[in-house]
């Protein structure tokens, strides 16, 4: 995969997001430095997904600010440098693997789209199924294609929401290796995790969210493993 152009950091200042009466993020202050690989942990509803969607510029904050890069760029302005993997696949079931990738590559006016798409399909192990409809794919294959879509434009900031979803054991190992390589090329990674020690091993920093605020951060010295340990309730 092509190395990232440059790394991008991310800063949240008093970031707040409410959905009706539900407070998803509560005056969150957080700085992710360029080149860090941050693992986010926390229960369902702790605000991980909301944080990632805010960082992707898909949602507006209710209050506070989120900036990407060295300046005051908003998430929406930085979209061209962000690779996003959501809970849902963000793929068209009625299109083939290759059509899905070409659609997003063309929308983003990527030069050399054909080579890029072929390379990525080979990378995620779907080269042989490139013309099959996504509808016929297993959840794991879809997840691989989703990751390929997020990497199409060589983003400098990766926002991955539970990227291991649907992947089998070899798939997780492949993903961990891919993430480690991206990290080493200088990509900034912010990913929410649910268990999966292999993926956690890629992280250089861990943050645990609780009720929309930072509950623990390995940046303050706490070991990554203990930050990621979410007690089941």
């Amino acid at each position, binding site marked *: 995969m092509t190395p990232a152009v440059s790394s991008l950091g991310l800063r949240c200042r008093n970031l707040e997001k409410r959905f009706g009466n539900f407070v998803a993020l509560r005056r969150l202050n957080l700085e992710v430095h360029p080149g860090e690989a941050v693992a986010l942990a926390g229960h369902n509803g702790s605000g991980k997904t909301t944080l990632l*969607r805010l960082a*992707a*510029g*898909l*949602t*507006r904050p209710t209050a506070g600010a989120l900036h990407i890069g060295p300046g005051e760029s908003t998430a929406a302005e930085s*979209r061209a440098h*962000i690779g*996003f993997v*959501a*809970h*849902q*696949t*963000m*793929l*068209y*079931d*009625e*299109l083939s693997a290759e*059509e899905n990738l070409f*659609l*997003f590559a*063309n*929308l*983003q*006016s990527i030069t050399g789209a054909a080579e890029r798409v072929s390379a990525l399909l080979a990378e995620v192990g779907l080269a042989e199924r490139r013309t099959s409809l996504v509808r016929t794919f297993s959840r794991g294959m879809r997840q691989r294609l989703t990751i390929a*879509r997020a990497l199409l434009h060589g983003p400098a900031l990766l926002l991955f929401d539970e990227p291991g979803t649907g992947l089998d054991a070899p798939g997780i190992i492949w993903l961990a290796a891919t993430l480690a390589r991206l990290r080493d090329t200088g990509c900034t990674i912010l990913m929410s995790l649910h268990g999966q020690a292999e993926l956690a091993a890629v992280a250089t920093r861990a943050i645990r969210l609780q009720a929309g605020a930072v509950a623990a951060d390995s940046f303050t010295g706490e070991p990554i493993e203990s930050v990621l340990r979410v007690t089941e309730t």
Partner: protein
Amino acid sequence: MALLHSTGILLGKELRTELRSRELITTTLVFILLVVVLFSFTFDPTSSESRRFGPGLLWVAFLFAASLMLQPCFLREQMNDTLSALRMSSPDPFAIFLAKLTANTMFLLLTELLMLPIFSVLYNVPILKVFPALLLVLFAGSAGICVTGTAVAAISAQARMRELLLPLLLLPLLTPVLIASTEATAALLAEEPALRLDWVGFLAAFDIVFLTALWLFGEYLLEE
């Protein structure tokens, strides 16, 4: 230019998905056919009666069919959250609307064209001579339905009772289109056909007003 570029790509996607399943076009066509046939029982379909009621009946059928056909255009994007991917990848959110409303207009127009000969035969109204003018009216009216309808579909997709809500929000907005299209069609189907350019002009004005409104405010409908 960038807008047309991304609109073209997205339109290709819309057409490809529809041509693969043909779901929308077939169901819409069957629906219009049903309305047209059922309506023939409610009055005596002689040629002169049909000239009076036919145009209105046709446009009411098109309107209701469109309010069904427009349902999935944003719901489909919600299924796998592809709308988020589109929002992140398209330089201009208006391209998303432009592609959808173009595709919807094409689908609606196609079903209307398939329907016309059936209507002509069933109701004994000749249409062949006025066909080019009729096509103009059909286009102007269908574009109005789909411009407004695509915007309203984006609204109703985010509410409860969305299937019911779409026609409730859309039909009052489309009163002018119904009147203008019906009047223009009636003039064309009359004993002495006439192309009412005033009504066609009115439809064009409607299309432009709502296209501009969509251009100005559409992006807010895609926000989360």
